[in-house]
């Protein structure tokens, strides 16, 4: 045998398919500063737009005087709500079934709300113009505290909704009420509580924060008056949805709208929805006939486009005295700000918050969510999580720790006792989901063994005694989180956005030389799709990943898809990619059979080609089949080798994980040190372990930030006080803890390659681990629950309130 003949292992490795730690192909351009972002788009004659924003959280707009602004050299136009009314665009629909002002129409409802759009020849002139627009306001009382939003005498925020007793999600109870959403069996749950041995109840708040991607929201709109075509370059996580929304609200023919999402510098949910900047830039381009760029600055990003969380979750668990949970009751007060602009699937006003039963076998549960308006920025986006799943995971994981404390039981033991058992899958939860697969006990035990959990508990007990004796001022906390995510929105039976089912898509075209291009309806914002999508195809059809170019983000060339958010890309588009590849493979098999002069059924796929069963030397490589597809296909077969798949998933996927945080806190200063953080993730089949690790590192860093200090905070008068990275906690490499990652593999039974998605798990699972660590550290001093964020001064305050600091 020729020594040069590659072994099967070598042939397989050459593909760099699934399971390979393939280096990210996009990093070649990113690390050399050669990415192409929206702000790199510079079109001839391009103008720049910028906003006049409200200094008031709640005020009547009496008058807007733009006369001085229009005298500023370079300023061409000042667009106000009155201008937009002429094209019926003063208000726009939100993805949540509400409407939102594009520019202040009579009133402003949050600080930094968009009031007027100044269009100028450059960014400096635009800003000079902004400073010359004189707006006369009549301040109104601000409503900041969501718990006061439905007081009888609460100020009326949304005058446009006067007299409307129902909204997109049913009846409204109050002028500041948006919806009430209930799930579960109330009577059965009440009964479980009535006969419970043990009950806990706690208001667990998940504070308002913000995805704050490195690249802010931005667009360039260019209207061609001759062709009547609008081209929009934008930071869009869902370019096709943007195209359809523009077609619907601007009444433009959809084929004449070209949406292009170039490289995106992080999204994390911030770039799913539509913002006033997009509408204003489009209108400005239509009015001026020139391309118009709008680029948000950091203050605008943090204070105006899409906060996340702000859920106030009153949580009760019923249990037996030996720690078996018997019922869960949760009421959420959801602060949506001035407009309900959540980017959830349309029928889900609180997203998939009904995953709040978590990893536990609750026989019954009841959930009610009340959404309310306040004088804060709109949003409620899924910040690196599936819709409201991180709130749900935090709620149940914190509540399980509180129950463990009440039962005087180890929180790991309580979890092991209540996990859904492997044989219960597919598992129907009390709040309506069908969990696809899981092996929670194995993951939990692996975490406990790897971290030496029992020894850590022993050390903690000793440190507590030392603290009581006055020998140390440091306390130690162990934070467990065992989360179950629900991702991959979603099946058409329960998921749509504005009526469009949440499928996703892939189109593959193989070229004669054994190379190809694949296009998807998703859009990478850093996830590494150009790398991983090619790996799926490589394994499926036996062509090296390096020979497959992946292209996303251009609505003219990519098949329609719902975009990338909610960890849906791998569960939905990943499946479409596998299915499209299998169509290619099926045709390839027919071509190979013809060329090898055997029946198709006599062929077997062998890594990178087809082989005749029992005749190993009779082999045709996929590369050669690609060539044959363009010159010698079987009689009656169309030439070429292309396939498209639109995948409507039969179910969601349910990734899970077991995390442990070990933290030490100096009670005198409140300064904490994350001594250790272990994260075990089970995302089913692993496509690229290196990218998974990177995703987990990134998500854990965000979780660390959120739990330990990152918040969007308003003072009692409605001023937002966290408008820059000075005060909005964005950790650097110095503050970020070291991460230990681990995994188990429980494939999804319904997904073509068994993959579940991982990008958001670390954010979802990380936050409760950090918060539980802080709470666990303080628990022996008598506390039950300390609200996030756990920054230094709040830790000190907790210690002081518990009498540990004089």
């Amino acid at each position, binding site marked *: 045998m020729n020594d040069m003949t590659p072994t099967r292992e070598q042939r397989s490795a050459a593909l760099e398919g699934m399971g390979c730690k393939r280096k990210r192909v996009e990093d070649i351009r990113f690390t050399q500063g050669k990415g192409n972002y929206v702000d790199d788009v510079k079109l001839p004659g391009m103008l720049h737009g910028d906003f006049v924003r409200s200094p008031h959280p709640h005020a009547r707009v009496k008058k807007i005087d733009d006369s001085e602004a229009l005298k500023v050299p370079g300023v061409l136009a000042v667009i106000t709500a009155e201008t937009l009314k002429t094209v019926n665009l003063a208000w726009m629909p939100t993805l949540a079934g509400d409407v939102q002002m594009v520019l202040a129409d009579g009133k402003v409802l949050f600080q930094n709300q968009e009031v007027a759009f100044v269009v100028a020849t450059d960014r400096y002139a635009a800003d000079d113009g902004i400073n010359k627009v004189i707006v006369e306001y009549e301040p109104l009382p601000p409503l900041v505290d969501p718990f006061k939003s439905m007081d009888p005498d609460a100020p009326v925020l949304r005058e446009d909704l006067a007299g409307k007793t129902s909204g997109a999600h049913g009846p409204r109870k109050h002028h500041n009420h948006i919806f009430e959403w209930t799930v579960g069996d109330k009577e059965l749950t009440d009964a479980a509580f009535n006969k419970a041995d043990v009950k806990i109840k706690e208001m667990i708040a998940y504070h308002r924060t913000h995805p704050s991607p490195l690249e802010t929201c931005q667009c360039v709109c260019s209207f061609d008056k001759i062709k009547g075509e609008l081209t929009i370059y934008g930071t869009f996580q869902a370019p096709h949805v943007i195209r359809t929304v523009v077609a619907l609200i601007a009444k433009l023919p959809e084929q004449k709208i070209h949406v292009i999402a170039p490289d995106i510098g992080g999204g994390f949910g911030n770039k799913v929805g539509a913002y006033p900047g997009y509408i204003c830039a489009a209108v400005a381009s239509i009015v001026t006939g020139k391309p118009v760029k709008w680029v948000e600055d950091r203050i605008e990003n943090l204070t105006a486009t899409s906060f996340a969380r702000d859920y106030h979750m009153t949580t009760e668990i019923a249990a037996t005295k030996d720690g078996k949970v018997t019922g869960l009751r949760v009421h959420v007060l959801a602060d949506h700000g001035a407009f309900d602009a959540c980017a959830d699937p349309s029928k889900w006003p609180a997203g998939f918050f009904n995953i709040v039963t978590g990893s536990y076998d609750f026989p019954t549960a009841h959930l009610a969510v009340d959404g309310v308006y306040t004088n804060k920025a709109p949003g409620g986006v899924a910040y690196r999580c599936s819709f409201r799943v991180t709130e749900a995971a935090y709620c149940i994981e914190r509540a399980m720790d509180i129950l463990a404390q009440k039962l005087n039981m180890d929180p790991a033991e309580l979890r092991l006792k209540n996990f859904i058992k492997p044989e219960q899958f597919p598992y129907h939860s009390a709040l309506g989901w069908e969990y696809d697969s899981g092996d929670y006990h194995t993951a939990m035990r692996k975490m406990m063994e790897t971290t030496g959990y029992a020894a850590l508990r022993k050390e903690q007990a000793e440190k507590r005694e030392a603290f009581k004796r006055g020998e140390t001022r440091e306390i130690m906390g162990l934070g467990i989180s065992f989360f179950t995510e629900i991702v991959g929105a979603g099946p058409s039976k329960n998921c749509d956005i504005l009526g469009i089912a949440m499928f996703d898509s892939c189109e593959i075209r193989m070229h004669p030389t054994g190379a190809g291009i694949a296009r998807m309806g998703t859009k990478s914002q850093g996830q590494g799709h150009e790398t991983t999508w090619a790996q799926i195809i490589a394994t499926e059809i036996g062509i090296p990943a390096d020979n497959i170019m992946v292209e996303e983000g251009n609505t003219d060339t990519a098949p329609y898809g719902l975009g990338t958010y909610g960890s849906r890309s791998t569960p939905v588009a990943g499946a479409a990619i596998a299915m499209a590849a299998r169509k290619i493979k099926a045709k390839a098999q027919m071509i190979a059979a013809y060329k090898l002069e055997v029946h198709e059924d006599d062929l077997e796929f062998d890594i990178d080609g087809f082989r005749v069963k029992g005749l190993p030397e009779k082999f045709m490589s996929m590369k050669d089949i690609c060539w044959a597809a363009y010159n010698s296909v079987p009689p009656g077969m169309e030439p070429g080798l292309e396939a498209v798949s639109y995948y409507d998933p039969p179910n969601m996927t349910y990734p899970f994980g077991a995390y442990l945080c070990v933290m030490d806190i100096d009670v005198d200063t409140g300064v904490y040190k994350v001594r250790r953080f272990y994260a075990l993730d089970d995302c089913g089949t692993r496509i690229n372990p290196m990218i998974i690790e990177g995703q987990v590192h990134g998500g854990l860093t965000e979780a660390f930030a959120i739990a330990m200090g990152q918040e969007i905070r308003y003072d009692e008068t409605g001023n937002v006080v966290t408008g820059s990275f000075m005060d909005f*906690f*964005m950790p650097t490499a110095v503050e970020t803890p070291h991460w230990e990652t681990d995994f188990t593999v429980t494939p999804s039974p319904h997904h073509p390659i068994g993959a579940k998605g991982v990008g958001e798990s670390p954010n979802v699972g990380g936050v409760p681990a950090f918060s539980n660590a802080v709470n666990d550290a303080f628990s022996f001093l008598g506390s039950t629950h300390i609200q996030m964020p756990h920054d230094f001064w709040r830790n000190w305050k907790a210690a002081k309130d518990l009498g540990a600091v004089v």
Partner: protein
Amino acid sequence: MIPGSFSYHRPASVADAVKLLSDLGEDARPLAGGHSLVPMMKLRLATPAHLVDLHGIAALKGIRRDGSNLVIGAMTTQHELLASGDVATTMPILHEAALLIADPQVRYRGTIGGNVANGDPGNDMPALMMTLGASYRLEGPGGTRDVAAADFYQGAYFTALEPGEILTSVSVPVPAAGHGYAYEKLKRKVGDYATAAAAVVLTMSGGKVATCSIGLTNVHETPLLAVDAAKAAIGTSLDAATLKKAAAAAEAIMAPAADARGPVEYRKHVGGIMVARALQRAAAVAK
């Protein structure tokens, strides 16, 4: 976050810079590292019509020994301060503190003169200069004068600088050989101002504190010298009761603002802890 328009000037000598600043009057601002001024301009909280960039003046750069003092040119960057062997060996507290200023990118650009002259109570160097007994050379249309760091700060962003004057150098007396030192800074993250910070320079004799000077950062509208706290430490072996007394004396002169770093009570409390920790660490390194 886009600044308004301004004229840019780049004089080659201190005399030219002084002339420009006095001719242009209040509409002109000198530009050093720009870390405070440029962000203020981007927010249009500062709208100078003229920027007088001091980077073209070679005489404002460098560190030299002048008798028992180190003289540091105002445009010396924090990075250059860190690279200086003289600073590291004779006044290591400056080295230690400069390392706590933000990150390398900031330190490549940020200058010692800008840091001390801006009057921002959050800056680290002013309290250190007070602790070390430094003086500032100010050059203006009326000539040259030296002002002690301790007399320079009048309020937040208000200093002894007269219109048209530039701070051209900082003169720092070299502390006694074998002195102990420490700069304890509590901050939320890299790049943040101190929640509270304390600088201590002391000498020990026979196990007791012989001399002591304590400076405080960001706990008042100006940097502070904690004179009573230092007095409390002198003559003691820094036992627990003394540390408590010194911390309390320091806290008594603190008047921080409540902000995202914490409420007033917290910032004073940790200010006291920084004093106690800096005293302990300084004593431990003294010879």
